[in-house]
Every structure is written in structure tokens, then in C-alpha cells.
């Protein structure tokens, strides 16, 4: 039993995946809040007065939307780590998500800054539903990969 580079990668990935799970949950909550906004009667009494509650919520949504780029970078980072550690199977399992991220960022709306979501189209029901579904799928993927990394780490530690 020795502490190899591969084991280190798995440990790092484990920690980072925990962070990604947190991001995904935040993402889901943010989009749900966008969607169910109108069901909050307090906001509705006065359409122009942003209540304290509302401002907090908007901030939360904005933060979640800003987390997109860090999420992608983290994922790219441990993919590169696995590449260096020659963990081909793990890398292969992550390839589809990596490809998806690249595609998603390439097909983003015209924007000068970094970012993925366009405030003028985000309220479209189709896009909102798509983003929500995306959040759930990612959550599932990260949860599964969390356990896989745990297994991978133990396996590498035991076998070497």
C-alpha cells in the first residue's frame, strides 16, 4: 500500500466532486426559484417594490449563475489530473460530460463577458425546463462519480 499519484488524483477528485455536488444543488435551487417566483404572494402585492426577501433571492440566483464557469474549470482540472495519472477508464467516463461542457460553452449566446445564461431568454419556459433538467442530471452524475472516486481511491491504495 503506497500513496501514488493516482490515489492523490482520486482524493482530490473526491473533494472537488463534493464541491460540484454543492454547485449542482445550488443551480437547481436557483432555477426553481426563477420558475416559482410568481407563486410567492408577497412579491405579487407590489410588482415594483423589491422586498428584502426578493433582493436576497436575486442575489442567490446571480451567484448560482456565476458558478457555471468555476464548475467547468474544476471538472476540466481533474480530467487533466486523471490524464496525467493515466487513469484511462475514469477519464473515459468523464469524457461525455467534458464534451458536453465544451459544446455548451461554444453554443452560448453572443456575450462579451464570460457566462452562459442570457437574462433576456432565461425566462423562456423551454430554456428554463432544460436548465432544470440539466441541473438534475448533473447532480446524479456527480453523486455517482463521487462514489466511484471513493471506490477508485480505495482500490488504488489497496492494489499498489
Amino acid at each position: 500500500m503506497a500513496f501514488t499519484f493516482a490515489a492523490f488524483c482520486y482524493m482530490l477528485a473526491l473533494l472537488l466532486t463534493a464541491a460540484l455536488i454543492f454547485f449542482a444543488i445550488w443551480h437547481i435551487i436557483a432555477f426553481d426559484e426563477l420558475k416559482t417566483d410568481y407563486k410567492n404572494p408577497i412579491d405579487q402585492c407590489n410588482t415594483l417594490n423589491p422586498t428584502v426577501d426578493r433582493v436576497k433571492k436575486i442575489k442567490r440566483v446571480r451567484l448560482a449563475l456565476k458558478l457555471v464557469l468555476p464548475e467547468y474549470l474544476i471538472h476540466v482540472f481533474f480530467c487533466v489530473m486523471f490524464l496525467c495519472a493515466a487513469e484511462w477508464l475514469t477519464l473515459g467516463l468523464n469524457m461525455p460530460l467534458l464534451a458536453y461542457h465544451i459544446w455548451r460553452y461554444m453554443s452560448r449566446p453572443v456575450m462579451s463577458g464570460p457566462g452562459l445564461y442570457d437574462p433576456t431568454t432565461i425566462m423562456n419556459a423551454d430554456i428554463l425546463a432544460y436548465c432544470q433538467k440539466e441541473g438534475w442530471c448533473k447532480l446524479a452524475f456527480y453523486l455517482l462519480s463521487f462514489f466511484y472516486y471513493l471506490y477508485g481511491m480505495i482500490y488504488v491504495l489497496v492494489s499498489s
Partner: protein
Amino acid sequence: PLICKFPLTAPSFDFASDRRCTSGDSSSTTTGSASPVPNSYESLEGGSYSGTSLQSPPAGVPAKLAPPFGYNYPTMHPAYQQNPAPKPDPSPSHGGYNPPGYQPYSQVLTLLSSALGGLGGVSELEAETLRPVNLLQERNILPPKRAPPPEPNLSNDLRKVNCSPDTFRCTLTNIPQTQALLNKARLPLGLLLHPFRDLTQLPVITSNTIVRCRSCRTYINPFVSFLDQRRWKCNLCYRVNDVPDEFMYNPVTRSYGEPHKRPEVQNSTVEFIASSDYMLRPPQPALYLFLLDVSHNAVESGYLNVFCQSLLDNLEKLPGDTRTHIGFVTFDSTVHFYNLQEGLSQPQMLVVSDIDDVFIPTHDSLLVNLKESKELVKDLLNALPGMFTHTRETQSALGPALQAAYKLMSPTGGRVSVFQTQLPTLGAGLLQSREDPNLRSSTKNVQHLGPATDFYKKLALDCSGQQIGVDLFLLSSQYSDLASLACVSKYSAGSVFYYPSFHHIHNTAQRQKFQKDLQRYLTRKIGFEAVMRIRCTKGLSIHTFHGNFFVRSTDLLSLANVNPDSGFAVQMSIEESLADTSLACFQAALLYTSSKGKRRIRVHTLCLPVVSQLSEVFAGADIQAISCLLANMAIDRSISSSLSDARDALVNAVVDCLTAYRANGSNIQPSGLIAPAALRLFPLYVLALLKQKALRTGTSTRLDERVFSMCELKSQPLQQIMHMVHPDLYRIDNMTEQAALHLNDSVIPQPPLLQLTAEKLTREGAFLMDCGSVMYLWVGKCCNETFIRDVLGFPNYASLPSNMTEIPELQTTYSERTRAFISWLYDFMLTLTLMQLFFSRDDASTKTSFFQHLVEDRTESAFSYYEFLLHVQQQMSK
């Protein structure tokens, strides 16, 4: 087809119930500028229209059709040409467009309905809209006059108070119960709104408490139910609410204890004067800023003269009160501000040349009170056109100028009107030419329909946040990347105007259009810092909005400015089954600050029946609304995906819908292309949409014109779009008094609508085409000389000038009759002044623009109507 014809003795039904808002609130003032409500004509007319059948040619038309005017005709299917013998139609109620094949069926129905007594009306209506029509065999599917929208199948009481279809329309007047049923019908469900329309009568209510549902915040409306004197049940969320004490008193009858007689409950369109609960800050004054391009190109086009003159003429009529503020900024490669402070002897020009970081030179005197500084404003407007005549500056720093405008306006908000004549070339937001002229007529994909930069969008969102609306006037002969520039208006709830190849002398038609647009633009009503919320019955939800605005939340639109000429479309979806309700309601509430500084809420409520049968869904389809909604969806599609995708989607919409109808009705003959009567115009309208500048391929279309057409389709109200897409064609040289409309001692002849095909044009006639914002008059070579002399005021055809834009006022009956008809057409439009007349003779240059509206004809790259039907049929059999 059956050609036998029986006299039809159907019980007559009124197309036009009185949908006008009845006034009647003692505590109110009535607002609204005095444009006539189109419906009043219909109600005057009642059911007394004695039809001149479309099938019988109008008197005086020679039976022989003139040879085609250089256009190709499709070879016609034999059955297609088989016009039934002309026959006067004895039925008054259907306006005489009962095609053959219908009578035996309807006679049975008539018998049935007469057996049922008075209940006949509704089932008759439904039977008529469901009557199967074989599109391949029936040539004359156009109604003799512009058809009114279908009436929802409601009880008379509800129908009477329902919202006017000019303001609020639904694509399906029978709402399907479930999403599954909606999917089966393959028709889009959505609303078309024209919320800030000019109304002649509008009940305005001032009260301390505005009664709203406690849980969903719906405004009380005619469709709520009163459980007893003190409680009412919301028709959207079904919550039971208390009736406040104040509401028990009725100011109209001055009686107590009759809450259901209050004006809010008697009218589906009402306006409330809002209390301070509805204000975030004190209501803002009217604020107008004009941002003028004064580069060489702009001076050359001469628009400044026209603009300054127009503003001088209308300075008194700008909507506002004593607090109204006005300001001017001009720009070329630098930005110029004008100090108009009261007390100065003449306007002071301040130049900011640092366009990378533009700043406001002085804060308090650039936007000045119009009343106090009126003389200075007039001086400036008189001087402006001359100030830049010798400019050599060709650059345009639009981006920095807009940033300056934003900084100037952000403390209060208001309206910025931008006049631009070229591609912005300096500073932030500069653009490159993206159009390849060689690809203008390509049938492949059209590129660059979306913005090149998000600068204008971001700026618009900032403006929207500060309640600034930006209206764009683009007057340019070169490509100016409207796709990017239009974003500044799109997301700040502004409007876009475009005058291709504008020149004040060389292009009189464009100049006149610009003048008339400006006249309307400067004097029309305006609402500031507005929001619009759309609520609907529980179970329904909003899918997508179309129009110019920023969507703030699922059902809330933020409109920095709202004007009476903009329309909105909303796509809906059914999330929960509506099985336990028989009525679905929609409520649009527009909260705005009037130009007089009053906070007001305009509320429109529409009520529609819910149905469970597919046939009923088809029967209630409103084909004009469906076409408009589809046009909006197609434009979104062409920007997000591609133009060819959008075109395919439109064709598929027809194919799917007709397939769904065929699958549903088992009793109809399998051959031919069968559509229910309610949808018989569907293929025609879709074909017309495909031939619009926005969506056509193959015909040379400049990118800016295409993008402008898209902007128009997305932001215009329904009537305007329908006139644009499928104009009305009339023959006007032989109008008779027969079947004419008598209105305040003037006689308005009613020529029948003609199909949009060159086949209907004869050399002996004169034809008028009404496209909403423009009218064309086409005079044939052998047109009778009396018409040319008595109406146009010229001795013969040869002496007609090529660029007439008005019909002279001659003292002949012939002329009076024609002018009465044309002004009657004007009145139907919402925006009275956006009108123009072109005379296109055989050899005139406007010929192309006239002929491109003949959508039923084949062009080099597009189907004729008949070919399109065959194409649809072929797609269906796949």
C-alpha cells in the same frame, strides 16, 4: 363536388355583438384619444349585409380575364378552375360565401335546429366552422369582407361583457381541457394582446381600495362569482374573498348593496387610478431625449429638416404636463450636448470628444422643462438643420452617444428617440458590415440574423432597469446591421422604424412616410415605468412571450415605455387538467405612469369556454391569431436555429394540423385536402407568411429589410400584422351603392375582397390594395376614362404621373364615393396616420412592391397557392 344549391334558411346570428366598453362611472373621467373603435361599424351594420357573392363577378367586370402581366401562372388543376355558376345568394346571414357542397348538410342542421327552437344559433355556428372544405377544389375561400374573429361559445351575458377581440385574443376560442388534447389538435395555444390600444371609451375608476384576490392578486372582473353579498370567488384561483365595505356602494347608481353592479364587474376593460401602494417612487414626469445623428451621411439625407420641422409643429402636442422635460444630444465622431437653461439668450453647445469615457458636461441644464425653455428649444430646432451643413465628419459614435443618453436619463427614466443613418463606426458598440450582397437571394441559409455584439442588449437592459425606453429610427441606404442595433429597442420596450434609402428630395414616398410616422410618434399616448402581468386560470401557464420588453419573472414584463401601437404575443401551455372548470380566464394588468404623472392600472380580462372534444377545439380556432403566433414562433426559430428550419416548421404546422383533423374526422371523404371551415385559410396565411420579407428565400432581400420585417412581425398588433401578411385587395373603379354601408349620411360602398392573385386584375379596372401601413392603387391600361377623370383628376391614362401619393378631392359623386371608402379603410386601422398611397401603373417602379403582395401567385422561387396545397397534401400522405 355538389353544385346543387338550396335556399338556406338558417337563423341569422350576429357576428357583431356590442363589444365596446360601456362607460358609466360617475366618479370617473374618460380618457383615451378619439380614434373610432373599429367594431362600431360592424355593430351598426348588424346582420343586414346583403351579400354580393364573391362567386358572381361584380357588375361591369368583363368576363374575359386580361392577359397575365408578365407573370407565370401555374397550370391549373381542372377541378380547381371549375368555378360554380354565378348565383345570387339569398342568405343574408352568411354574407353569401356559402360554397357548394354545404347546403344539403346545413339544411339538415337547419331542420334540426329549428326543431330545437331558439337554441339553434350556437350549434349552427359550430357546424359552420367545422364544415369540411376541400381546399383543392374550392377556389373562393376568402370571405367577402375581412372576417371578424370567431365568437367564443359563451352565454349571452358573458359574451356581452367579454374583452374586445381587438385588445385581447386567444388562438383557440375553445380552450382544450388537457395538454394531451391540445397536442392532438396540433394547434398553438396563445394570446395576442394589444393592451395600450387607443380606446374611445374606457371606464376609469378611482377608489381607495382596488379589490383583488387575496391569494393570486387578480383584479376583480366580470367573470368572478358572488357567493352572497359579502363574498366573491376568484375565477383564476377559486379562492373565496370578502367584499370590502367600499365596494358595496355603487357610484353609478348611487345605491348600496349591489357589488355586482359596480363598473369593475360590468366591464372587462377598466382602468384604475392607483394609490401610492403601487409606486416605488413618486410618478415620474414625461421626459423626452432626442439623440440625433449629424454626420455627413445624415446631413446628406436631409432627415434633420424633416425631423426639426415635425417636432416644431408638434411641440405643443407632446403628451405631458407642466413637468415635461426635453433634451437634445447630437453626435458624429464626438457627442454634442445642448444647454437650454432658461435665461440663456441662445442654446449653448457643449462638445465631449472623449468618446472612450463619455461624461455629462453639466447635470442640471441639459434636460430642461419644456414650458420654461420653450423659446430656446424652438431656437435650437430652427438652427439645427443649418448647423452641420458643411460637416466633413463621416464617423458615427452611436455607442458612446447612447451611453451618454443613459447617464443623462438614469435619475428619472423616460424616452430616448435615436435617429441613426449609418453603421456605428467609433467607440463602444462599433459594428462591422456583415452582409454579403451576393447572398441576398440565396436559397440557402441566411446568416447574421442575430446580433453581432451584446453591447446594445446590455445597454438596453440597463436602460430598462432605469425605466428608459429607447426608440430607434434607422434612415439609411447602406447596410447598418439592424440585427444588432434593434436590440437596444427590443429589450427596453421601444419601437423600431426603418426607412431604407431615405432621402428628403429623391425619395418622396419615404419622406412622407417618415413625416407621418413622426407625427403619430410624437403625439401618441405614452406610459412610463410600466409593468404588465398576465394571469390565467389555475392549470394554465405561460410558456414564452413575444414582443419588445424584458421578462422579469414568469408572468411579468417590464416595459420602460408603453405605446399604443405595440402588440404582444404569449404562448401558453396547459400544465394541469382543466376538467373541473367550464371557463378559462386570462387577465392582463398594465401598471403605468401616464404622461400627466398619474399612476394607472389598465386591466383586461378575457373569458373563454373549456372543451373536451377535439372537434370543438377545431371549431373555435381563430386562424388570424394562430397565424400571428406562428409567425412569432417562426422568427424566434429562425434566429435561434436557422431560417430554413423556421420555414419547415411553418409548413409542418399546416401539415400536422390538417393530418390531425383528418385522423379525427372519420366521416369525411378520404381524397382531397380537407380542412375545417374555421381553418380553411390556414394554408393561405402560412404561404403568405413564407413570402414575407422576413421569411422568404430565393428572392433578393436586403438583410436590414429582412430583420426589420422580423421586428415588425414580433412587435406589431394583430390587425397590423394581418394587413401586412395578407393585404386586402378591392376593385374600386366600379363600386356601386348596392350593399353599401350608410354611416352618418355618408355612403360607403363595400366592394368584395379579392384573392391576391394577378388573375383577379384586369386591364379595365383599378384596384386598391390595403397593406395596413401603405396602400397601393393599381390602374390598368384600359381603365375606363371616367374613373381616371372623375377620381384621379387626369384626362386619360397616359397623363397619369408616376408618383402620385394622394387622391385629389374632386366634387364628383364618383370621387366622393371612392374617398369615402378609402377613409373608411383608414379608420379601421389603429394607427391612423401611417398611411400612404402609391399609384402603380403598368410601367411604374412600385410595380414590384405591389406584385410581391400577390401571394397566391407563383414567383421564381416560391410556390403558388395551388402548388403549396399539393405540397401540403404530399407531405400529409408521407
